[in-house]
């Protein structure tokens, strides 16, 4: 009897001790995403849904001793709105982790703020490799994908399939340039050549003149180093000019929702690289159907990645019993990522979470049997090859040998 009471008292004490180590007893997640702009479909409200699912699943499965809450906001793709919101969340609401952060300018800004205020930043949506190179810091994890992985997957596959001469249609801002640069490197390394590039203003609406130049260049492949509405418009207008008769298009950053917006008639045959697809195996299908029930659309890699990142974070908090940034980060880096999103995923010292990527080909309309049945999985690119090797990293945190 006495032993049980003592044991119970100890348990209670440990539980409350664990609670005391979590600042104000609550683990608060902030989801900062684009809810109304160019990335609202691939990221946006879907990432809020994914986060909520992760929180609910975590509480149901792990029954933690601490409370978990989340807040969300729309940063409208503007770094000033994002950093003001993040600052307010940190200063007034004790938010512990800033998540999602689609759009490179937002991510870079909020990462800096997170470092200054000692909070964790989990990036799912943003693409630039700067996050794990020049701008890297030790409170940030880049979870889902980056421009290197996309370029690497798509460009090398297309060159191998015979597309040797490339012309780039690039969004004239940092993200577009970085995508073009990464892809060019891969094309040349795979034995192809880059015959030219056209930089269009971002955001663009009429690509006809740039497509005309691409057509006249004699390239086999037109690489679209842009995203979202720009990619969609480029593809549509290319179809108008009959470009696909002689040249093929490679969408360097194309999401499931972009393909949905384009329609299979326009997008068929295009190669693209994804970090996740709902229809690959039972685990992905189960999770995606649950997601679909709430969001009414199939998840993109950004949304699936968001769930995965949040879940990994919460598990790390539970394991360490604290929400202290350094300790949780250490735990996150120590633990491999094994869920429906990633198999044997690992967070490297530059903050990059490496996992398998997948090379996809968009199906023709008659090949698609059900709604959202858009991709044919061509190849799995193993984690070790998909991402930029540490040896080439420009991140100061990576130890030089």
């Amino acid at each position: 009897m006495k032993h049980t009471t003592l044991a119970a008292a100890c348990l209670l004490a440990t539980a409350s001790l664990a609670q005391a180590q979590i600042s104000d007893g609550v683990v608060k997640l902030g989801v900062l995403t684009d809810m109304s702009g160019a990335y609202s479909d691939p990221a946006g409200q879907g990432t809020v849904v994914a986060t909520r699912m992760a929180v609910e699943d975590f509480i149901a499965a792990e029954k933690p001793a601490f409370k978990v809450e989340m807040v969300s906001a729309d940063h409208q793709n503007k770094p000033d709105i994002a950093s003001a919101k993040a600052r307010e969340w940190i200063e007034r609401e004790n938010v512990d982790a800033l998540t999602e952060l689609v759009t490179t300018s937002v991510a870079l800004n909020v990462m800096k703020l997170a470092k200054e205020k000692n909070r964790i930043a989990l990036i799912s949506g943003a693409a630039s490799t700067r996050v794990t190179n020049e701008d890297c810091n030790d409170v940030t994890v880049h979870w889902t994908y980056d421009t290197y992985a996309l370029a690497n997957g798509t460009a090398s596959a297309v060159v191998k399939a015979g597309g040797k001469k490339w012309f780039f249609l690039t969004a004239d801002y940092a993200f577009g340039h970085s995508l073009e640069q990464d892809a060019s490197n891969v094309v040349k390394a795979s034995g192809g050549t880059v015959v030219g590039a056209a930089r269009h203003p971002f955001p663009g609406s009429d690509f006809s003149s740039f497509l005309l130049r691409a057509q006249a260049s004699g390239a086999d492949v037109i690489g679209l180093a842009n995203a979202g509405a720009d990619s969609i418009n480029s593809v549509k207008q290319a179809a108008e000019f009959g470009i696909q008769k002689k040249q093929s298009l490679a969408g360097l950053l194309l999401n499931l929702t972009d393909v949905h917006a384009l329609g299979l008639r326009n997008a068929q045959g295009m190669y693209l690289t994804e970090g996740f697809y709902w229809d690959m195996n039972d685990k992905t299908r189960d999770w995606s159907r649950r997601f679909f029930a709430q969001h009414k659309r199939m998840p993109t890699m950004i949304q699936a990645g968001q769930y995965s990142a949040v879940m990994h974070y919460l598990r790390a908090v539970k394991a360490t019993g604290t929400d202290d940034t350094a300790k949780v980060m250490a735990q996150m880096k120590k633990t491999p990522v094994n869920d429906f999103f990633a198999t044997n995923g690992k967070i490297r010292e530059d903050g990059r979470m490496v996992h398998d990527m997948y090379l996809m080909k968009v199906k023709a309309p008659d090949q698609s049997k059900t709604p959202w049945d858009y991709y044919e999985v061509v190849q799995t690119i193993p984690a070790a090859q998909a991402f930029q090797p540490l040896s080439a990293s420009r991140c100061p945190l990576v130890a030089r040998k």
Partner: protein
Amino acid sequence: MASSSFASGARSRWLFAALIAVGIVAPFIGYPTFLMKVLCFALFASAFNLLLGYGGLLSFGHAAFFGSAAYVCGWLVRDVGLTPELAVLAAGAAAGLLGLVIGALAIRRSGIYFAMVTLALAQVVYFAALNLPVTGREDGLQGIPRGHLLGVVDLEGSLAMYYFVLGVFLAGFWAIHRAIHSPFGQVLAAIRDNEPRAVSLGYDVGRTKLLVFTLSAALSGVAGAVKALVFQLASLTDVHWHLSGEVVLMTLLGGMGTVLGPLVGAFAVVGLESELAGTVGPWVTVVIGGVFIACVLLFQRGIVGEARAWWLRRRAA
């Protein structure tokens, strides 16, 4: 457009005293970062009001001055290493210079044409910010340190920064007040009320207009420079024409041609956006548009204007 009735010396002294008192106490009641944002925009709106309410000139491109000064200040503090107060002054001067150039071109037209020209010229500034590497383009000029005021006072903390911002605001506000109640201000009012008459009386209308435009631009620049320090970021939003529209709304909502109008308007708009962002989310633009429409149709005197009209009616009754 009404002119301020707070012309008498005693009244303005009371006004200033009240403002200073409220300003000192405010950060202990409200959230300092929010208040700092209000102060920056209040200065911006006051500078704009100088041009619109007192000068009768509608500029639809004032974000060019606000934003370019934000970039200049950020660059001076982050890359050149100037102390914040020097950077703010230099950035304000730079914005004034830009105002001189744009003003000289725009003054050739009047009324609506003037507004359109300022809009289009501000777009050139926007594209410069978009394409020049030094601005960080769409990433913005990031990681601006707040620095040490006069090399001594650390502005990293919210409270210290707040008082710096308050000080700058009060200085700018006082400058505008002095300009309005000077002979220059009276010539300005004369031009606004009846330009042909002012010309016939021998006043150099063009020079006066250019002067007020430059002054307004410089003070808008000061507001932008301080804002860059508060948020440690200068971005494309600061030079976008939507911001030009917002400052018009603040001035209109608060009350054009009144002293307190811009303050009230800035507080209302910044507060509205801040509150709505939590509840209404993406419908903020629609609400702002609705407020614009309501103001223009029903509420042309703005909050302060309507309040004063009501007060005068009561006194007369």
